[in-house]
């Protein structure tokens, strides 16, 4: 029995039983992003306010006059989740200081998809992080604009076929490398940055809890498998996230005050990316040559992050 399975044995005991995101939401069957949201809410607990960007998670959860949210939640627009969250934080801070609300600590969370974070929302996010608001920002990265019909974003990986960067006779689909958003956040010198994936629920929950304990801005980049957009069977949603980690396509790490640490779930030896690509329709068109080219990049990136973890490691290790 390996480590993960051991953890799994205790999983229900380690996880907050209270559901703060109700069933009845309209996410697609097998949506790993909505699972991540559900687990995030468990980790955050009740003393939370969430500001969400427009996107899948927004529309599936808030069909008026009902809501799936059991924590205070606000949606304003697409590109401004971080700015709205910063205003919520400022408002609550002032009201608490002036004795106008309960004297309790409330964590403010901004959330958006990859488009809402890495493309249209990057300015608001950069501003909020730079200003040092006491808030967590979670990017639920499903690697394309899924809500509008699987259009490419700067989070779409090289070679993936999307509706605006389709694979064709003379195109391999996405021709650019995925934007390295976690590193952009590290460059903001925020106290805590982490990558996570709900396929590793305890790691994900621990990282949210850690971000919650940080006073100041923190950023979690959550890899969120989208069976609809990636064209893979819904029952594979969790294993697909695991494969992304095991192949090094999406490394799990955290950066605490500039110190890097690879998550214990990271494999010592990477599996070939082909294992991850083969179950997904969005990569099915790729030639051996193209896969080798992407494999090379994954190897290089993995070496980089491993070295960062080695040379910029957490102080107490």
């Amino acid at each position: 029995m390996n480590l993960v399975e051991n953890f799994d044995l205790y999983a229900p005991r380690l996880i907050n039983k209270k559901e703060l995101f109700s069933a009845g939401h309209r996410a697609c069957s097998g949506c790993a992003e909505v699972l991540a949201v559900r687990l995030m809410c468990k980790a955050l607990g009740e003393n939370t306010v969430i500001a969400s960007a427009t996107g899948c998670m927004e529309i599936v959860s808030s069909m008026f006059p009902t809501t799936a949210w059991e924590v205070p939640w606000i949606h304003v627009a697409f590109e401004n989740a971080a700015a709205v969250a910063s205003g919520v934080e400022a408002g609550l801070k002032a009201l608490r200081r002036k004795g106008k609300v309960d004297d309790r600590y409330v964590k403010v969370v901004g959330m958006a998809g990859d488009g809402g974070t890495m493309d249209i929302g990057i300015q608001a996010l950069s501003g909020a992080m730079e200003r040092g608001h006491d808030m967590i920002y979670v990017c639920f990265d499903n690697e394309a604009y899924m809500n509008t019909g699987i259009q490419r974003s700067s989070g779409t990986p090289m070679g993936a076929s999307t509706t605006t960067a389709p694979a064709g006779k003379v195109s391999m689909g996405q021709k650019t490398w995925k934007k390295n958003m976690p590193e952009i956040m590290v460059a903001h010198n925020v106290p805590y940055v982490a990558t996570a994936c709900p396929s590793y629920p305890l790691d994900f929950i621990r990282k949210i809890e850690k971000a919650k304990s940080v006073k100041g801005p923190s950023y979690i980049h959550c890899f969120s498998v989208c069976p609809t957009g990636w064209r893979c069977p819904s029952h594979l949603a969790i294993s697909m996230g695991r494969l992304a980690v095991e192949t090094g396509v999406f490394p799990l790490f955290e950066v605490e005050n500039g110190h890097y640490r690879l998550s214990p779930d990271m494999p010592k030896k990477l599996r070939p990316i082909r294992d991850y690509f083969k179950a997904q329709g969005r990569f099915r068109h790729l030639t051996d040559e193209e896969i080798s080219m992407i494999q090379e990049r994954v190897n290089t990136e993995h070496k980089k992050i491993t070295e960062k973890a080695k040379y910029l490691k957490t102080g107490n290790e």
Partner: protein
Amino acid sequence: MGKRVGLEVTVAVAEAVALCRIDMAGGYPITPQSHIAEHLSNLVADGVLDAEFVTVESEHSAMSAVIGASATGARSYTATASQGLLLMNELLPIASAMRLPICMAIANRAVSGPLNILNDHSDIMPQRDTGWITLFAENGQEAVDLSIQAFKIAEHKDVMLPVCVNIDGFQLTHMVEPVEMPTQEEVDKFLPPFAPHATLHPAKPVTMGAFAMSDYFAEIMKAKDEAIKNSKKVILEVWDEWGKMFGRNYKAVESYRAQDAEILMLTMGSMGETAQVAIDELRDKGIKAGLVKLRLWRPFPFEEIRAALKNAKKLIVTDRACSFGGPGGPVFSEIKSALYAGDHHPAIYNFIYGLGGRDVPVQDFTGMFEKVIADTDNKAKDTYEFWGVRE
């Protein structure tokens, strides 16, 4: 009683907003608004104002942050102009649909292109249909008074809508004017603490900004329209209360020497003061000229406008923006629409003037009157003209 002081209007507005004990302000620099943000920051830095001043990275984020703060129940404020207001545009109908009583000053400035930092109304006019209560100040005192009244109107339980106070850029914002500044005690007496209808707090979790499809969207729009229409009653009550407390009376439509006037001019904003001088000159010459000043742009005061114009034979509507390829100026179009429903139909003329900070001396106003008077058989009625452009 407050003290009469000489202050730059932006500074006076910031002082007035501080007297309202705001909890949060979002600010981003843009000429000619910046002094409001600067002075508010000073007041926070000196501990005079206990508020969070969030120095956002754009006006879009300013409005976003102010929406977030207002949703927590914090009294929230921002100020902008021109491109900044256009950048906020996306969020303005959201703020009003969410019924958040945000207050905002707009230091009216021409919209690009070409870039121009000076005054006209081309920034506020495209925001006409966003569901914001929209007020225009004519002078520094009005800018101060309206800025305080704005919170009371916005936060009234029967209103719960955002309010913007328009203050002509430079021509008003950067003037040093004598202003009677209310005292803190007076403002505290006039303005009760903000009692929000719902707040973002774990004590009672709510969802704000839910997604609505065709089964609800039209009802939500209707509710918003009714809310802003009904706000007029509250606005008039607030002005009445203000008048009783401070002796300065406000109306949706103001008239100057209009009672027996045969030819009326209509202005909005700071140009009213210059136009008044023109009216006096014309009256001295025996011309029965009068002035009507529109203070309340949204909700539009239809009855008051019809009453104010009921004796005019000719009406000159002045506009500081153009609806390109449309009916002329936006004020012109609104006034025509108001009169169409009534039974009095004066010959109506439209002059689009003072664009991009173009100086408008008294003789321009008298010139407009002379031109309209010369049109004896009303041949030029229902037309619009860019006043004073080089042909």
